[in-house]
């Protein structure tokens, strides 16, 4: 039994830990990480001596000491939090993000910090300043990004579950590439306090788990209003595990016509179509819907999100924290620090964002971008009058080869073409495995729901998962 502890789902791990102890699970995972991480590089930092163990409580806590791994852009008090950037190397956060506080209060062990694209800028985890992450299903391929470390860790059974963040697909796309479950909650569902910002009006913390049930268990802990985050929603938090019913009868599931077009890998298309058939067979109604402004989503995203990013990253200036490159005067210090501290993609986005906010360009880019964003949100509002959920591929392809898109930013940006609209609209979405390619790479499908209707997402995702049993397949490591 103890040999397989690393394979436990969160649900099972809690069961075992609450009866005995989480220690054997921690030990098994530690051993596994020691063996696998040098090959996969999913963890930036992992010091078994420095795990935050929950303090003993006189009553059972929901997570019972089970370890949760954290993407390295979520602040943990007294720990380095670097966003996989040289500019924050060695930066120790003086406080806990709200989600970390919540995990600790729920009795989780805070267990290892996951690699990612630098500042979450990327779709392959190749922009990390501390080495690329490899996909457990094929070490020559990327795990997706930016939460590639979190997804790879869960897929490789180096973590029971992990937190990620999703600005344009950064949880769902790597979940899809790694064959695990990735949830991006509604914007405002989970507090952003302590998440190092990329695109503040898009960013949302979510989970990467082995099963849909685990996703619901974690959202129960993470969701809720936070007085420290003005954008967090004061909406009631249901018990999400109650939504896990194996029943989709009567659900209306829309297939957005604009998502099944050229450029979509035929194997991916086939797999998602088959999933739609499964839903139909199980009693859901499948219909075609239209999201007419989809074609503008990526462009708008790369205007508005980078505008916010350029401003959010201004604070990394060598003055208060992080890297400072000494120079002859203040100006030079700014130049040198930011030149040496930021990687290529970060610089690209800062420049782009600075440009679109500049006097004379603001109206043409940022303001117009915001208007189109409203149109895209309205697309979804209309679609959700006809359907309870929307179903589409999470990404146009399965995991691509390492290096394949690094020289072609546009191709890289397009790998988020199906996930970006969700962030533009602020709605919740989940990626779950729906099949495998002929070369044994996971394919993910994305379900999207109305704002704050994570329950319907869970219900449909759970039903499909139980039916397909794809979660039982593991990479050969």
């Amino acid at each position: 039994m103890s040999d397989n502890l690393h394979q436990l789902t969160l649900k099972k791990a809690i069961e075992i830990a609450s009866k005995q102890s989480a220690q054997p699970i921690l030990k098994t995972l530690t051993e596994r990480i020691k063996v696998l991480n040098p090959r996969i590089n999913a963890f930036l930092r992992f010091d078994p001596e420095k795990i935050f163990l929950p303090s003993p409580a006189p009553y059972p806590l929901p997570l019972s000491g089970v370890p949760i791994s954290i993407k390295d852009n979520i602040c943990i008090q007294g720990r380095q939090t670097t966003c996989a950037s040289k500019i924050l190397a060695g930066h120790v956060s003086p406080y806990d993000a709200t989600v970390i506080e919540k995990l600790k209060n729920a009795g989780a062990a805070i267990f290892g910090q996951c690699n990612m694209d630098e500042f979450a800028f990327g779709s392959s985890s190749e922009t990390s300043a501390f080495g690329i992450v490899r996909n457990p299903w094929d070490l020559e391929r990327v795990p997706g990004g930016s939460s590639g470390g979190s997804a790879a860790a869960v897929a490789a059974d180096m973590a029971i579950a992990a937190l990620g963040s999703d600005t344009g697909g950064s949880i769902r796309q790597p979940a899809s590439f790694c064959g695990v479950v990735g949830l991006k909650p509604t914007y405002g569902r989970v507090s952003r306090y302590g998440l190092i910002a990329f695109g503040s009006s898009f960013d949302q913390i979510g989970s990467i788990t082995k099963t849909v049930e685990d996703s619901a268990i974690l959202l129960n802990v993470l969701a809720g209003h936070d007085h420290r985050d003005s954008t967090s929603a004061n909406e009631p938090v249901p018990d999400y595990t109650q939504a896990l019913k194996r029943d989709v009868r009567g659900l209306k599931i829309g297939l957005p016509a604009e998502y099944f077009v050229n450029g979509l890998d035929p194997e991916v298309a086939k797999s998602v179509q088959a999933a739609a058939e499964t839903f139909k067979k199980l009693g859901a109604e499948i219909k075609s819907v239209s999201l007419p402004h989809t074609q503008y989503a990526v462009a708008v995203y790369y205007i508005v999100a980078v505008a916010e990013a350029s401003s959010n990253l201004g604070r990394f200036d060598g003055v208060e924290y992080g890297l400072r490159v000494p120079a002859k005067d203040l100006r030079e210090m700014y130049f040198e620090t930011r030149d040496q501290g930021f990687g290529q993609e970060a610089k690209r986005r800062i420049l782009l964002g600075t440009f679109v906010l500049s006097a004379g360009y603001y109206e043409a880019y940022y303001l117009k971008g915001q208007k189109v964003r409203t149109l895209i949100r309205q697309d979804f509002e209309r679609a959700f009058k006809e359907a309870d959920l929307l179903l589409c591929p999470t990404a146009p392809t399965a995991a691509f080869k390492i290096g394949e898109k690094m020289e072609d930013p546009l191709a890289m940006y397009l790998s988020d073409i199906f996930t970006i609209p969700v962030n533009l609209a602020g709605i919740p979405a989940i990626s779950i495995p729906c099949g495998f390619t002929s070369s044994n790479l996971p394919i993910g499908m994305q379900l999207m729901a109305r704002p704050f209707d994570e329950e319907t997402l869970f219900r449909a995702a759970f039903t499909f998962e139980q039916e397909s049993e794809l979660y039982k397949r593991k990479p050969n490591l």
Partner: protein
Amino acid sequence: MDYEPVIGLEVHVQLGTRSKLFCACSTEFGSEPNKNTCPVCLGWPGSLPVLNEEALKFAIKVGLALSCEVSSRLKFDRKNYFYPDLPKAYQISQYDMPVNKGGFLLVEVKTPEGGMPEKKIGITRAHLEEDAGKLLHEGIKDGSLVDYNRAGMPLLEIVSEPDLRSPEEAYAYLVSLKAILQYLEVSDCNMEEGSLRCDANISVRKKGETQFGTRAEIKNMNSFKAVQKAAQYEIERQINVLENHERVIQETRLWNEMKGQTFSMRSKEEAHDYRYFPEPDLVPFTISRETVEAIRQTLPELPAGRAKRFMKDYALSQYDAFVLVQEKNLGDYYEDCLKEKGNAKLVSNWIQSELLALLNAYKVSIEKSPVKPKDLAGLVRLIENNTISGKMAKDVLPAMFETGQSAEAIVKEKGLEQVSDTKQIEAIADRVIQANPKVADDFRTGKKQALGFLVGQIMKESKGKANPQLANQILEQKLK
């Protein structure tokens, strides 16, 4: 050639809330460097701002007092620029939707003719924003240090229309504005501690011209008088430039108090592009009309209203009323004197002519005056009931100021009671007439001025104690 100056003022007022604008840190002045800081006001990665509602309430109060339109929607923007005192590399401010816009302030300036006409100065906007930290250079080798205690302090930036036409008007505007802010109790307006700062936009144009000239923005003035002096200097400088057939450059200039001059800091070409955009961390929200009306109900009596009341109820002149209300504590002091049954007109005179001079000389503020309102009222009563003369009272007041004693106590101690005993004065009058037969004759033959001399002699002989009116009457009678 006759020129007309055009001046607009930007005033930054630090709102006197207990905590900062977007976090719970204390706003206490004078704490040790970086004591009043947290991840939010230090701009640590991952931290987020949350609006201090008290600051919003204060801002709306000011807006209402300045007859502004209070926005129905509250929205913040980011103003992006790099400077070490700005922890996030952006300042959270309000760009295109200020909380208050379109108001006015009535300003009174003494004219050479002696009048004090009211002038309406437009208020363009008054918006909320956070303050930056402070660089410390003194005594530090190889660099500077930053104190972030001030970072995130709530500021209200009040921008006037370019309606001011002289340095005196600019000064008067600041005095009136400060008075309003103090009456609203939203700021201590302490310029030395930086809780009130002022920049001036100044241009000149030929009289009769309708277009504005090119303006310079003047910064670094540390008092209202400095604003007036800097404006005076800058106006003359610009006129000189134009008279030399050169062009005024749009630029930012710094006032140097020591040299009494302004110096160029940066030109428009070097000006920042602040890349304003809506602050995504603070969701815009609606300010309900009910909220605004509820705040309106809490507005206290303001200086202008109080001055009108003083003129009406106490028959004060416009100027006297103006002086008394400009500082809230002075107006309060005045009204406290009246509660002690002091004569309204006399008390006003005694405060303005004598007490303020003493306070100035000893550099004491009115609320710390050693002469309490009941004592000043007591002094005025002694004058009114002829216990002492006004002249004597001028010696009594400084003694009260120095000792903190009441007027009665000092008068008794020094034996200064006025002599109003007719017989005593008649006896002195007889002696004076006898000693000055020539002067007495002069009066009898119609030289009215001669009486003053004789009264003076009576005062002298009585060591100033004789009641002058009585001395007058008795002399007139005796010399009929």
